């Protein structure tokens, strides 16, 4: 699993073997393939980009073209052990509603996102006075798909308001794990494991 993106590697490590997983926004299916091949997971995917879907199907993965904002509603309740949303929450129309859907179709959910309160982002905004363009947020404001920037503390507040339980949290600085202390300042990237 060394080839996986760091947040995906964490998720791949934490998912229990032999479970049913829905990867929402599965991209080219790298995580699904790893889960299938190394943990005998029954993995299903949803992906907006048809070229990515074609790539996934060509890899033998079960992926449907769909939009997390709309199509999660069509899955029955509790259909999956885990629903995964990696680096996608900040691109959705209504992150709060997508979170509700994730924990409706999945008994647990992994959510990962870039932390907008990382010190580099803060400095960039403070000193530059412009919307930050950083390694994890590399696209200018007018064309970024990230329409709902979120910080670790914002996310914790949303989870609390929604009555969702945090079962685990991992924070990344660069490609390395960093401590939870002052994560809102020090983490570039966060991964949360949630349940109802």
């Amino acid at each position, binding site marked *: 699993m060394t080839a996986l993106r760091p947040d995906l590697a964490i998720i791949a490590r934490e998912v229990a073997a032999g479970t049913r997983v829905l990867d929402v926004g599965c991209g080219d299916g790298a995580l699904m393939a790893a889960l299938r091949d190394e943990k005998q997971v*029954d993995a*299903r995917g949803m992906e907006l980009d*048809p*070229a990515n*879907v*074609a790539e*996934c*199907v*060509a*890899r*033998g*993965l*079960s*992926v*449907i*073209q*769909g939009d997390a904002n709309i199509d999660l509603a*069509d*899955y*029955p309740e509790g*259909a999956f052990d885990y629903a995964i949303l990696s680096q996608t929450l900040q691109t959705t129309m209504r992150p709060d509603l997508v979170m509700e859907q994730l924990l409706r179709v999945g008994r647990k959910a992994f959510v990962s996102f870039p932390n907008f309160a990382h010190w580099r982002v803060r400095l960039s905004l403070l000193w530059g006075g412009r919307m930050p363009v950083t390694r994890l947020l590399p696209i200018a404001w007018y064309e970024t798909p990230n329409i709902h920037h979120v910080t670790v503390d914002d996310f914790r507040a949303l989870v609390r308001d929604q009555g969702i339980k945090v079962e685990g949290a991992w924070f990344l600085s660069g490609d390395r794990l960093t401590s939870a202390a002052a994560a809102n300042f020090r983490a570039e990237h966060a991964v949360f494991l949630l349940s109802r």
Partner: protein
Amino acid sequence: MTSRVGLDCNITLAGPLALDGGGALAPVDFAYETYGTLNADASNAILLCHALTGDQYVASDHPVTGKPGWWTRMVGPGKPIDTDRYFVVCPNVIGSCMGSSGPASLAEDGKPYGMRFPVITIRDMVRAQAMLLDHLGIDRLYAVVGGSMGGMQVISWAATYPTRVASAVIIASTARHSAQNIAFHEVGRQAIMADPNWRSGEYYADGKGPDAGLAVARMAAHITYLSEQGLTEKFGRRLQNRDAKTFGFDADFQVESYLRHQGLSFTDRFDANSYLYITRAMDYFDLAEEHGGHLANAFRGSATRFCLVSFDTDWLYPTSESRNIVHALNASGAPVSFVELSAPFGHDSFLLDVPDLNRVVDGFLKAGGQ
């Protein structure tokens, strides 16, 4: 006596084939072709289901038109449906006119059935195919693949014989005919039946069939197979072999000339009564209705893997129809892949050059063997 496998096979099975409309068909004639070799444990068989006016000549030259098979892009050595790897069976559907039992077949009295042929359904076609596979010694299919009406047969296969289908590929299809689908078909049927040569379907004796009516039916249907964008790009308002409008009713426009040609050439290879019967079968198709009104019930407990493909310019069976099936499959927990591909050719995209379609079918089928 022809061989059981290979090109241009024919077999008559005793039946009876019980029909959805009541009654039965016996005996049942089958015309079919096979490609590739069935392996020792009969586990590499793929059933190909053809569309409304398709036939068994999927990858061999058509005996009437001399044209190459209708899906040579997809079927053959090294193609996604790889005849070096799979044993491919493509039967002509019952109701058709290329050798399987249909209205032009002879009834017990030695005369063509005509309109005495029973009205059949998509599921009847599927049950007939199951009879043929029994005869060929194939119990479980590696895959069933089809586009358009072929896709209806695939989905009906998965619902009717869930344990016999390992993988199902449903392209540019639907689980039910919409009001608009039925309406277009009705235009075609009325054109045939309004032709004085139709004579209630009894035109076989003197060979003068309702060609004008059948041609109009084909012209109307052909429009539904193309996208507006495709028609505009291909023809626009260009004139046919002339510099100015004639102020008459000749085929001034290229699109008129094209449609007339499509209509006329169709009458050389297709039987008008078969057109009535098969369009009826499609109009009657509503898989949810067969399962208490809930499409998901059709797939409950199914172990079949599904792959659905739609095309963004197909307005005959638009993406929403495929999504309807995908939702039902999700609800029943079946493994399903779905993608809407971008292609300019409308409904006909499934027959034409869409490289992503080949990639998807190839990958999906190969993964079924893992």
